[in-house]
């Protein structure tokens, strides 16, 4: 399932999935970049929620540690899981009731607004676009835009209908 097996194509180099293999990334370098990301998110959280960065700092340190562990596990575990999957699993485990320190962690990360954590990624996303994305969309024409909207609506509404039926069936 690796893009490098694919037919070589100029477009590949410019698309995000071809950029890096998570098993080869320098963990130290990415941990440093992660510090910058967390600092920006902390300041964004201040503006979004009014929570002073000092008050929200312990929660951010927790997230930082979870992310670095995610990088390490994705890099060194004998089987591969994406680092975001590792970070998610660890985040779930450390907040489970009964796990030592879980209530403290839950309280600390509670100072961070989930949407404010996503804002920096979208800002980088806007800056990362090249002419390629626009060129592809233009070349594909209006039909593909209609289809893309149907695809996005389809995956959402498909899941909504099944989930709703399943909740009703189980009497919830």
């Amino acid at each position, binding site marked *: 399932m690796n893009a490098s097996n694919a037919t070589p194509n100029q477009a590949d180099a410019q698309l995000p999935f071809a950029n890096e293999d998570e098993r080869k990334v320098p963990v130290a370098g990415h941990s440093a970049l992660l510090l910058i990301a967390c600092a920006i998110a902390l300041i964004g959280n201040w503006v979004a929620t009014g929570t002073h960065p000092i008050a929200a700092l312990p929660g951010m340190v927790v997230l930082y540690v979870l992310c670095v562990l995610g990088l390490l596990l994705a890099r060194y575990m004998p089987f591969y899981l994406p680092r975001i999957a590792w970070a998610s699993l660890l985040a779930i485990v450390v907040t489970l009731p009964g796990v030592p320190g879980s209530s403290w962690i839950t309280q600390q990360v509670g100072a961070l607004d989930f949407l404010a954590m996503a804002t920096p*990624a979208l800002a980088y996303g806007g800056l990362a676009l090249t002419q390629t994305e626009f060129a592809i969309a233009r070349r594909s024409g209006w039909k593909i835009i209609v289809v893309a909207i149907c695809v996005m609506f389809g995956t959402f509404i498909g899941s*909504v209908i099944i989930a709703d039926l399943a909740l009703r069936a189980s009497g919830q």
Partner: protein
Amino acid sequence: VEHKPPSSLGALWLHATVLGIVLLAEAIGIGRLQLGFGTVIFLPILYAFALGIAVNPHIFKNMARVIPSSAVKLSGVMITITIMPFIAKFGTTVGPQIEKIIAAGPALILQEIGNLGTIALAFPVAVFLLRMGRESIGATYSIDREPNLALIAERYGLNSPEGAGAMGVYATGTLIGTFIFALMPPLVHALGIFDFRALAMSCGVGSGSMLAACTGGLVAILPDEKDLILALAAASNILTYATGLYVSLFVALPLTEWLYRKARPHDPANHRHQKNQEART
């Protein structure tokens, strides 16, 4: 005269620009537009994305005077880095709600099948309404985010019709996906048919920005249910990360290929692809 700073200075420029964008986006805050039948929600992530495009020197050449083109080189890597604290924060919402998550477990697992809704809705539109060719396969078999695109690249190559379809949906999703996913949940909720938990667990489609937009929109209209909405969305997103690629590979792609051959048995391109496969095996 174009000024070309060394890469570390370029990186500094990039992070400072992003900080500025984030401050502006958060200062504007969440916006609501009341329509007759529902509410349209505008989120800071949308402004941040739009502002990022507005100052992107690759898109608007004049901006190269303000932000050097070399500065944006690092932004692709930074997306994958900055999404991590967001995903980790999302994960921490699951633990405290674990009992409710387990209670909703069957629904949570079954709704993963709903991701095949891309085929149910978009495939007939592409093939019968818009009369598209084998582009339809790549375009509709999944939501065409990075792992799905890699799968199409491996199977057909990105230069093929299937690859063109997948790339088109990928590019469109990148450009307007956040907007679409912020728009849909409040409007679908306004229909009054569906349980909000069903909406929440449908937000995990395997894309961080779509997840953020979808839950952001839902939380904006149902602030009292925030904790459960986040936990269900986070759980479904993790399930999609875990199962999405396998569903794509073993169910969605073979199903779409089969449907296309049934719908267009005389498309000569079917034969071409079959030959390629035989030659490879």
